[in-house]
């Protein structure tokens, strides 16, 4: 049922980021192509937080990196503030990237172990020559304070002296150093302890308000994105399954995959009956995805049609778009 389509696109002037027909493929060997992202489109409106959710390996991270042109996608366009990044020459791309920063999954690996916190946060400022030494130092202090770190205590220490949560705070401070309009968070909390997760999520929400950010938030965990997102997009094997506001999606999922994902979230209430429809088996290989709907091999509602024809996104309720031949009503 996972399929293509552009019905969910809003095409407003407020779109900060518009992605159309994005395709990313890797050649791993001769005649072996991993189709990580296939003809995917979405847009992000100013001030919005788009959550992209899916199982590990569904192409979320690839998608995020392709948006940043790291590496550039094989096809499709990525329009950021009215500029198609895929058409930009290298040098212009370099400066265009600054308005869109990324937070990574592994907080430790995203910081160079050889550099002090001061050097780490100073680095983007230095690249773009933002202000003189004193101005930059002031900005670094402010950024650190805003992410909840005490500048005097941390400035001259190196990343391996910090915990994961602290590293993620440093990453956030660094990402914000260039005043980006947009922040792409690639599973920023999945490597952290649950207690720290909430702190970082709150920090991100706080930062979003303070800095007026537009965010793309990637996660494999529907529970995490519930509080933070304004729109949720569910992905399966490089395709979109469903796009909807979180309250609609959580209450009334229209796609069998979304429902299965929701079912896998543990329910803290022991009185509630355990829902039966859980995902079975492993996702198929992205090298050789199923025909028609890519989810059909694991779908309880699959029919012959699903194998023949790829479902297109269509609106099933206001703001809720689903790519399925047999949506749950």
């Amino acid at each position, binding site marked *: 049922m996972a399929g293509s389509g552009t019905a969910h696109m809003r095409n407003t002037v407020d779109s900060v980021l518009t992605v159309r027909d994005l395709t990313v493929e890797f050649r791993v060997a001769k005649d072996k192509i991993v189709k990580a992202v296939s003809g995917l489109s979405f847009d992000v409106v100013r001030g919005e937080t788009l959550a992209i959710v899916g199982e590990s390996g569904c192409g979320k991270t690839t998608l995020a990196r392709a948006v940043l042109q790291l590496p550039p996608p094989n096809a499709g366009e990525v329009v950021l503030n009215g500029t198609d990044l895929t058409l930009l020459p290298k040098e212009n791309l*370099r400066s265009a990237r600054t308005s869109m920063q990324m937070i990574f999954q592994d907080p430790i690996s*995203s910081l160079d172990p050889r550099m002090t916190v001061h050097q780490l946060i100073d680095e983007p400022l230095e690249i*773009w020559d933002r202000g003189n030494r004193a101005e930059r130092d002031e900005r670094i202090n402010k950024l650190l304070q805003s992410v909840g770190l005490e500048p005097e205590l941390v400035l001259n220490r190196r990343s391996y002296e910090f915990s994961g949560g602290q590293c993620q705070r440093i990453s956030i401070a660094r990402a914000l150093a260039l005043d980006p309009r947009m922040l792409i968070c690639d599973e920023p909390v999945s490597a952290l302890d649950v207690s720290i997760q909430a702190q970082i999520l709150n920090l991100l929400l706080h930062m979003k308000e303070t800095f007026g950010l537009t965010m793309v938030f990637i996660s494999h965990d529907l529970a995490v994105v519930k509080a933070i997102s304004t729109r949720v997009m569910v992905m399966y094997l490089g395709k979109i399954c469903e796009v909807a506001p979180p309250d609609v999606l959580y209450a009334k999922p229209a796609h069998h995959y979304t429902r299965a994902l929701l079912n896998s979230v543990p329910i803290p209430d022991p009185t509630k009956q355990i829902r039966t429809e859980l995902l079975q088996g492993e996702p198929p290989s992205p090298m050789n995805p199923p025909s028609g709907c890519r989810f059909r091999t694991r779908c309880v509602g699959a029919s012959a049609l699903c194998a023949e024809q790829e479902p297109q996104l269509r609106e099933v309720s206001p703001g809720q778009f689903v790519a399925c031949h047999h949506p749950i009503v």
Partner: protein
Amino acid sequence: MLKFKELSKPTQLCVLWIGLMLFLAVFGSFLPFEHWTFVYEDDLGVTPFSPGHILGTDNNGYDLLTSAIAGTRMSIFIAITAVGLGGLIGSALGITAAFVRGKVDLVLSTAFNVGLAIPNLVLALALVSVLASNVDMTVVVPIWRRVMVLIISLTIVLIPILGRIARGATLTWSGREFVTAARSMGMRDSQIIKKHIVPNVLPALIAVAFLAIGVVIIAEASLSLLGVGIPDGGSWGGMIARGRNDLEYSPHVLYIPVIFLAITVVSTNQIGEVLRNKLDGREAKV
């Protein structure tokens, strides 16, 4: 990063020995000794601790202390130059291959594999013998040119070894997210290599380079022993080659250069090892 006092006793000794070797290599020629080929005609093949010859003489009448110092200069010079050049070129190629990927990587990796498919010593022998052949066989090839040929050959041998290590290390490091982060910040590739890749790859390469110095010293000695080194240039290998024919009755002529060589190789290996462990230790913390 590494403090001398924190090192273990044996490692300290190794560092001191290497320091001594470097001192002899640099200032050896200013010491008040005759040239190493000076013939002490009344002291042929005297044993160590003889008056006037603390390490004895060989059967050519050469003083072994002076020879060893001259040998230090030549061997250390050859080793450091070859490892330096090989490391520089090898790591440049290795880093480029791993960073650029794609066709460049394919070409360079294949080139490394080709270089590695020939055993070191065979490659060095072939290179030295081909490169050192004089165009006009009645024209003398000066010592400095033969030293150059030897260094170039050993460098060529080292390039694929060090290149492959640099490539591997770069692959690991350039996969780290801070490299992606730097890119997303708008950093130029050249800057990323300079600021993030090289500083992270370098320590591992330096550790390997220390090990490579030992390899080069032994390779040079082997070449000298086979008679394609610098026989009249005075290196440890040359001393061993000279001492080899006398080993039945003047074994000290063989032992002395072997001791110098072995202690130096032990020292560079030990220092390389310590450096590597130090780096591994830090890596483990990350």
